[in-house]
């Protein structure tokens, strides 16, 4: 049983990236039992194989910042604010060796990534994240894009996003970037209150926020997102509502709302304890989240992911790749890729990253990691990522991939939370299935739940707010 179930998966792998050795561990008996022959025939499109194909997305890490924000624990390289420069927009100078050297390294890394997929589809999304990618001179961005295009190909309508901070670009720079193909801007506004921006160590003020919004509009960037952070120290509900209001007024077609996370080793981590003043209490910060959800939805945004809101067709295509558990490349310091079912993080320190790139070139290192793909990991990834989205977990797909038994167990563990309104069950047509009916289905021995309940999703906002609690419950049954 086990063997026949597994073999098609293994066969479909022949000739895939040499770098990773795919050894599938049996998921577990219960899970595999129910994998019907038809499900196996569909193996090539099933959730368990989704990650095996060639990636069509790339994340590129451009780690430069003027200085480190107090909450930030990402791998960044702070350039400092040079006093000699009167024009802040020129801070990331074309000849700054720190930037040129890094981009050189990045280009070498991309070039040294030699894939061995049967098909080589073009990239459909590229995401420049950081750091503050807008500090990188357009010429160097161009170099990176060219290299990506040469190495992997780039579809003409690819989504090319770039994170940009107010105060690090002007209209001209943005225009240049757009000319290179950047067509989506993610603007790191974070807050509309100078005192809050200052308190979290942002290198810009509110006036620069407005300037930046002007530049974005001036340049006709249609697809742009505004990033906001909730639960900042000293933030009040009034301030938060003001930020949301001003955000809505600026009419971005995408808003990302991040709940502040106090990380160990950051300045905030040293200064503050979550839930304690000057940080808002847990109740307040839950209130902030709910306020964002209701205000933004009220303004016509769709809350399509825990922290993402979009208007119309402007969901971030690149991020959707993540939530769908599809593969993606990643290049640059500390970046994490997902290729062939393996998650692989590059070194976070420049020196080690430099060595890594050299090793990559001489064949001593591997570009997508090595290891074993454990189906349980695939299943838990799918659970945690799907639940971040408003679409939720597709039980039919999940059942086909991992068996009806698991689907049933998940529904069983969620029964009380369907009743309490944290979890929503939806049918094929995305009509809500009520909790009594769910209870009956769970109790029934015959019913295949996924035929009646197609999707499970976290309720917005109550379920989203408790996503960890809820997802970890599913983890308990998916990977006991």
């Amino acid at each position, binding site marked *: 049983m086990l063997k026949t179930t597994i073999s098609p998966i293994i066969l479909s792998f022949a000739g895939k990236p040499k770098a990773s050795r795919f050894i599938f561990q049996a998921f577990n008996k219960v899970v595999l039992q129910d994998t019907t022959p038809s499900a196996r025939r569909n193996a090539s499109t099933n959730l368990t194989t989704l990650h095996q194909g060639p990636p069509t997305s790339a994340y590129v890490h451009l780690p430069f910042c003027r200085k480190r924000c107090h909450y930030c624990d990402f791998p960044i390289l702070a350039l400092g604010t040079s006093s000699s420069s009167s024009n802040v927009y020129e801070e990331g100078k074309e000849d700054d060796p720190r930037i040129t050297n890094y981009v050189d390294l990045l280009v070498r890394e991309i070039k040294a990534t030699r894939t061995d997929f049967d098909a080589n589809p073009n990239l459909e999304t590229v995401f420049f994240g950081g750091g503050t990618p807008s500090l990188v001179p357009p010429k160097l961005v161009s170099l990176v894009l060219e290299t990506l295009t040469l190495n992997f190909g780039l579809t003409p309508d690819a989504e090319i996003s770039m994170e940009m901070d107010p105060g690090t670009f002007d209209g001209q720079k943005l225009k240049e970037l757009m000319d290179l193909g950047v067509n989506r801007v993610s603007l790191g506004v974070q807050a509309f209150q100078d005192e809050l921006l200052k308190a979290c160590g942002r290198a810009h003020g509110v006036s620069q926020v407005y300037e930046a919004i002007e530049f974005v509009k001036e340049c006709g960037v249609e697809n742009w997102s505004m990033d906001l952070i909730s639960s900042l120290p000293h933030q009040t509900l009034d301030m938060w509502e003001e930020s949301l209001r001003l955000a809505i007024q600026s009419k971005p077609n995408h808003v990302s709302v991040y709940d502040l996370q106090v990380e160990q080793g950051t300045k905030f981590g040293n200064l503050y304890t979550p839930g304690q003043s000057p940080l808002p209490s*847990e109740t307040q910060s*839950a209130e902030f989240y709910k306020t964002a959800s209701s205000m933004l939805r009220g303004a016509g945004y769709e809350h399509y992911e825990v922290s993402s809101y979009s208007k119309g067709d402007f969901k971030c295509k690149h991020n959707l790749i993540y939530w769908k558990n599809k593969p993606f490349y990643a290049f640059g310091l500390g970046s994490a890729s997902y290729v062939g079912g393996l998650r692989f993080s590059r070194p976070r320190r420049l020196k080690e990253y430099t060595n890594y790139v050299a090793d990559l070139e001489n064949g001593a290192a591997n570009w997508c990691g090595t290891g074993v793909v454990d189906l349980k990991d695939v299943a838990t990834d799918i659970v945690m990522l799907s639940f971040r989205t408003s679409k939720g977990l597709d039980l039919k797909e999940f059942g086909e991939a991992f068996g009806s038994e698991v689907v049933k167990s998940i529904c069983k563990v969620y029964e009380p939370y369907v009743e309490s309104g944290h979890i929503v069950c939806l049918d094929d047509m995305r009509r809500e299935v009520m909790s009594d009916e769910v209870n009956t289905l769970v109790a029934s021995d015959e019913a295949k739940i996924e035929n009646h309940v197609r999707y499970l999703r976290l309720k917005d906002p109550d379920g989203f707010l408790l*996503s*960890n*609690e809820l997802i*970890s419950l599913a983890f*308990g049954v998916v990977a006991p």
Partner: protein
Amino acid sequence: MAMASAMDLSPPTFFLSGTSSSSSSSSLRRLSSISVSRFRRLSNHKLQLLCQATAGTEPQSGLSVSGSKLAARSGQDRLLKVPISNIRNFSIIAHIDHGKSTLADKLLQVTGTVQNRDMKEQFLDNMDLERERGITIKLQAARMRYVFEDKPYCLNLIDTPGHVDFSYEVSRSLAACEGALLVVDASQGVEAQTLANVYLALENNLEIIPVLNKIDLPGAEPEKVLREIEEVIGLDCSKAIFCSAKEGIGITEILDAIVQRIPAPRDTARNPLRALIFDSYYDPYRGVIVYFRVIDGKVKKGDRIFFMASGKDYFADEVGVLSPNQIQVDELYAGEVGYIAASVRSVADARVGDTITHYSRKAESSLPGYEEATPMVFCGLFPVDADQFPDLRDALEKLQLNDAALKFEPETSSAMGFGFRCGFLGLLHMEIVQERLEREYNLNLITTAPSVVYRVNTVNGDTTLCSNPSRLPDPGQRKSVEEPYVKIELLTPKDYIGALMELAQERRGEFKEMKYIAENRASILYELPLAEMVGDFFDQLKSRTKGYASMEYSVIGYRESDLIKLDILINAEMVEPLSTIVHRDKAYSVGRALTQKLKELIPRQMFKVPIQACIGSKVIASEALSAIRKDVLAKCYGGDISRKKKLLKKQAAGKKRMKAIGRVDVPQEAFMAVLKLEREVL
């Protein structure tokens, strides 16, 4: 076997070639042979190990300390028979730390029973349990040869366990003797435990020889302590011996006094065999090894013997003496002390206090004093990991082979899964069993608060016993509840009288009597419920008196009390293992403490959770756990989900370790902490 380590540490070369197959047996420790001081680590060692080390006996070597070459040499002849009139059987009564082990060592050395060179071996090892808790494991018995006025004498030292949980075992050991050394630390005075054992000895008509030990210490006040002994016990101390076991002072005087003052056994060698079992333990290779004193008749290898209380019969595979390791002999007669190995399957077949007679020539009556073991304290033992349930059962069965007093039956609990309700002689016994299960059998256990056996008189006139709070009949069916009471005697320097009375009062104690036993020391008598003692009473006693007070208790019977069952409800679900039986007056404070602790320890859930303490349906204390409002909504930046996933996995693993009480996940630690709290507050 309790201590494999003891065996491992003793090189085999020390074993006497002539001994029985298992020298390890001498290092077997039994529950009933353990005495404890929780607060002092004993610097002295156990004779046990010395038994290992004695073995090789080259008569001429290694004599030194106390000099007498002659005496030492005679030690080598200790297997030689002496007339019954030259046998002396005695035990040593001493409070923990008053120097019993050191004195016993010295006696063995001076009589040449153990070579000086080998004595050192005992310092090598210390059992974990002992090191941490100050428990010494006794030597069961030692046969010594001593020449007094040119006549050879056979002296048998029979050791006694020191703790009150084992007072029955103590009484049987004493019943096997004609005399006892009462060893009192000349700088400390009489302690409660000593007192209890002296009374037992007097009940058994033993000749008591007062010995003041540690007279070399600067703080020694021998005269004052002698007065105390005279006043408290009423013993004539005019012939008390001053000694320092450590320095070897007074040892010969003690040996002389044993010969001169302790009566010889009666010569009843011709009567049908009656031998009193004063100790037994299970040896995995030879079955139960029984230590006994022949009271009447004689027994030899190959005899078909009959245990009168258990009604079991066996053939004596091996008969021998303890000197102090087991040495086979052909025959033992009235007055002698020795051991039998008869492939007895369980100690329950050959319990302490039972009488051995011949199968074919049975004695008319058994020796008096035999008692069934009655557990006084109960608790539930549950494996933390449900998979360990079969292991726990096996371990308990193995311990029971060696411990007839240990009782257990399976118990199921909604919160804790499968486990056992276990009965113990007392608190120490309980702790020792728990520790052994955890250490020797690698079990991870949750222990419920200990409870006593209640007697419930029901409305229909029945009386039932109840040791498990969750099985207490409903209030409607109860007419009254009785609980066991104990009489406790506290001996304390007078400075702490107030503190102790306060403690006893808090524990529903009823003051009985107080008297000064010396200028500076008082004896206080209280009667209080046993249930009040099963918690941390002893710990409190020690901490409130800086360790100076000592205590002794004995069960005096049942009394009716206003007892109620206190239940804990989490989210309206009753948590059975947390139910307790408490006195009505204490219910509120206990209820409050428990609910508060639970609130502290139960992680918040996705909904509000009430935590209540109830008597029947009446809520007497209540707390509420507020709902979690928000998780950490980490962004999975750049698609890097690894950290988030790790967090979720950890969270899932945390849930797995919890027990579901209805919809509420309660971590194991919360149970343990509350159970611990119950032990403290009850």
